[in-house]
């Protein structure tokens, strides 16, 4: 299901930007509540990220699930590393781990920054 071309495109995306969110819709206009929740958290802590709209790209929409071994969208990657989906991002935000994780990876993040 995940062809080499799609794998390479996903690899280029997560390698090309520090924070990449595979989502339904765009950061300005999310088209799914779970994607919107992650956009909300990232914006709240002022993290700059690139949103990839999987609804515009059926190959990536299916391919990212196999690539990450994760069946749902959204999916957050930070510096080439899979962090998790909506539940994990929300939990990490609530416990403060998310902010710590960004700081430990030298990515600007601050509560209430509203990037």
């Amino acid at each position: 299901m995940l062809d080499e071309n799609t794998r390479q495109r996903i690899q280029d995306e997560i390698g090309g930007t520090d924070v990449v969110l595979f989502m339904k819709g765009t950061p300005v206009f999310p088209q799914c509540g779970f994607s919107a929740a992650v956009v909300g958290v990232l914006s709240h802590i002022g993290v700059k990220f690139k949103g990839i709209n999987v609804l515009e790209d059926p190959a990536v929409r299916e391919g990212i699930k196999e690539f990450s071994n994760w069946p749902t969208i959204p999916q957050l990657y930070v510096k080439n590393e899979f962090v998790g989906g909506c539940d994990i991002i929300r939990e990490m935000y609530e416990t403060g781990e998310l902010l710590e994780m960004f700081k430990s990876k030298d990515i600007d993040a601050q509560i209430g920054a509203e990037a």
Partner: protein
Amino acid sequence: MSLVQLVPDVENAVLFPPYKPDSPRKGDIQGDKLMSVTETIKAKLTSAFAPEHLAVIDDSQKHQGHGGWREGGETHFNVEITSAAFSGKSRVDRQRMVHEVLAAELADRVHALSIRAKAPQE
């Protein structure tokens, strides 16, 4: 042609006629009974993780009209699960363990699955 000929097996019989809110959903068959998806999820998680705490909540109504929603519900679920099986595992690993057990449901009817997986004493 009779309905039986048009719809030759249980899978299709459940999938293709319009859903009625009280009609059986596409869960597993236990004995001669078709389980609801909620019951199927509970049964699979119970046998896989022997959880201390397990709540499977059909959250589909909140998503009515949104992506993946279908009449009859059982498309969006919240799972809270506490099990010793999650001790020492990362958040990503815990969710993958749950995804694996529910792979058939995720591939079929279940559109969204929200998971809170904890180890005892957390």
